[in-house]
Each structure stands twice: as C-alpha cells, then as structure tokens.
C-alpha cells in the first residue's frame, strides 16, 4: 500500500475519532487529540530547529567568520538562559531574554498598530469620499457612520450618577447604541464567514473520507 494510502487511512481513522466528540467526550477523542498535540508540537519544534536555529544560530557559530560569530553570541547566551525557565529556582536567569523579547514585541506591535492599522484605516475611511459616485457616497456615509459609532461605543469613561449608578452621557449612550447595532451586524457577517469556513472544512473531511473509501473499493 503506498504511503499516500496509509496516510489517508490514518487520516480517515483519526477524523472519525475527532467527530466522535460531537456525540460526547470519550477516550477515543482524547487519544486522537493527545496524539495530535504531540505530533504537531514535535513538528513545530523540528521546523524551528531546522529553519530558524540552524541557519540563524548554529551555522554562524560553526563558521570561522568572526563577523558572523559575534552577532549570535548575545542571542545564544539569551537563548541558553531561557533553559533556566525549566527550573523555578533559577528561572530568573531567563528573565533578561524574556525582557528583550517583550520589549521588541511591544515595539513591533505598537508600530504595527499605528502604521499598519490606525493610519491606513483612517485614511481609507476618508478616501471613500474622494470623487465618489452616488452609490459609493451612500456606501461611504454608512461606513463612516459605522466606523464612528463603533468607536464611540467603546467609550470607557463614564460618570457616577447621584444614585451611585455609573453611566455615560446620554449623547454617548445614544451613539453607543448605534455602534452596538453596527457591531452586531459586523459580528453576524463575521460569524457567517466563520461558519462557511467550518462547513467547508467538514465538507473537505467528508469528501476525503468518501473519496478514500471509493478509491479503496475501486470505484
């Protein structure tokens, strides 16, 4: 039996085990899940090893070129210090590497949020009105209203009323209600998209299973 057929058979079997979760949690599902977690984690570690650590760390270390060696000494030390995280007693040794990681990540996230989302999305909201057609103008008005009202909905600042209740300004509440409508519509559209993706996955799984059975039966 070719390797593809073995893979398809195993895949069919595991698919059935996973689908058994729809009936209820059971040992078969658990076994399949734990097997999957182990394999996927091991594969991820392999990919990281071969496609990140080897080219970026080990090859420069093994090379005699000091220009390549020096830049990797610091990350090597930081990376090795992370192994200390496996022992709570010396876990603090890895805090320096994690601090660097968090600092770089925070800066990356900040720049991505500002440069990649805030400015482009704000500009896109304005561009809907540049030399628009009537239909585009209507669409732009709705999108602009949706953007503004949705943003207004998340207004966190509020005031405490005399009776101790906390509520926002009446105007803000009205705007927030409109924002909730837009959010509900957006969520509904996104939910439908997620469902179509899930349905496609189910169809793909069923299709692969049935096709394997058909091919196994020689049809």
């Amino acid at each position, binding site marked *: 039996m070719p390797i593809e057929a073995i*893979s398809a058979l195993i895949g069919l079997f595991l698919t059935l085990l*996973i689908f058994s979760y729809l009936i209820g949690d059971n040992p078969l599902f658990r076994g399949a899940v734990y097997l999957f977690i182990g394999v996927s*984690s091991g594969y991820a570690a392999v990919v990281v090893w071969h496609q990140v650590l080897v080219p970026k760390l080990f090859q420069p270390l093994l090379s005699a070129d000091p220009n390549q060696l020096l830049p990797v000494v610091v990350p090597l030390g930081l990376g090795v210090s992370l192994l200390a995280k496996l022992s709570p007693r010396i876990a603090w040794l890895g805090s320096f590497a*994690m*601090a660097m990681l968090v600092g770089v990540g925070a800066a990356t996230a900040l720049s991505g949020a500002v440069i990649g989302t805030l400015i482009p999305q704000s500009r896109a909201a304005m561009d809907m009105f540049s030399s628009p057609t009537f239909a585009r103008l*209507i669409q732009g008005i709705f999108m602009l209203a949706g953007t503004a009202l949705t943003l207004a909905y998340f207004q966190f600042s509020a005031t405490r009323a005399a009776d101790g209740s906390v509520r926002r300004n009446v105007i803000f509440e009205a705007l927030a209600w409109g924002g909730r409508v837009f959010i509900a519509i957006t969520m509904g*559209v996104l939910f*439908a998209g997620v469902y179509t993706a899930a349905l496609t996955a189910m169809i793909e799984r069923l299709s692969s299973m049935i096709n394997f059975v058909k091919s196994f039966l020689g049809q």
Partner: protein
Amino acid sequence: MRYLTAAIAIASGSIVLFGYLYPLDALIQLRVMLTNWAVIVAAMAVLVGVANLVLVHIDKIRRTEKNSIYGVLLIVSLLFTFGAGLVLGPNSQVVRVAIDAIIVPVEASLMAILAVTLVYASIRLLRRRTDVMTVIFLVVAILFLIAVMPTPAGPIPGDFLLLQFLHMFSDGGARGLLIGIALGALLTSLRVLFGIDRPYGGN
C-alpha cells in the same frame, strides 16, 4: 534585577520602535539586529515551551492525575516526531506522513466540528441572551448565509445586493473595531515600553 530587566525591555523596545518610526540607518540596523536576536530567542523559547509541555505531562503521570495516561501518548508522539524530524529533516517522508495523516486531518476535523457546534450555539443564543442585538446578530448571519448559499436555481436573486448591503454596515463596523483594537494595542504596548507592565518577571 527587576530594574535591570525593565531597563533591557525599555531599551530594546525603544530602539526597535524608533527604528520603525524614525528611519535612521543606525536605528534601522539596531532594529534589525535586535529583531534577529529576538527571533533566535523566540525559537529557543519554542524548545523550552515544548519541554514545558513534556514536563507538565510527566508531572501529571508521576502524580497519576486523572486521565494522565493520555500524556504518555502525547510524550511518545512528540518525542518520535521531534527525533525523526531532527534526524531526517522536516521534509522527510516520515514527517510528511505526520503532516498528511495526523496534523491536517485532525485540525481539519476539529474545524469541521464547528459546523455543528456553531449551529448549536446559535440555536441556544436566544435562550442565553434575548435582546435586540442578539436578534440583529442572528438575522444578519442568516441573511449572509442565504446570500452566499447556492441553490438548484442558482444563487438567490439579489445576492450581490444583499451582500453589498450587509458589507456596507459590516465594513464600517469592522473598521471601527480594527481602529479600536489598534488603540488598545498602542496603549498596551506603551505601558510595556514605559516599564509599567513587566510580564517578564519584574514585579
């Protein structure tokens, strides 16, 4: 030590941030170097995380916790895949089998479960929350599904119009959500860069 870690985080973050926002050659080179360092450290963190995963299940097995027997399956499959991939490489036949026979089918099956789970959740939604927004949510979802639903007579009439109408609202809402999330990310990252939030072990 907490001050030293905070200083490291603030310094590295500031260099990378200004390397993004103020493109000086020196800043860009520093940013690229720090990014490469971070990539290596993150790769090492993956190995540490996998080791943590193994240790957690070994601990559960040693303490004979409930359903800890499945941990044996996890550890064996993980070590086998990692060992085979380490020796044979990620593009080897064995690893390919692991992907085609286990990873893809199981992940796709878990995603496929959502086709039933989401319908089930939608049915119970009005039992859980009965308000106008929930009704709008369900109505819009149903309309969207109808708009993209093929029928024996072809697509329903006016499917584009319906989709355009829904997108006219959803795009605005999505844009507002994206901007809001970006604002949250901006402030959250600023707190870290200011050393206010120190999730790397500083108190």
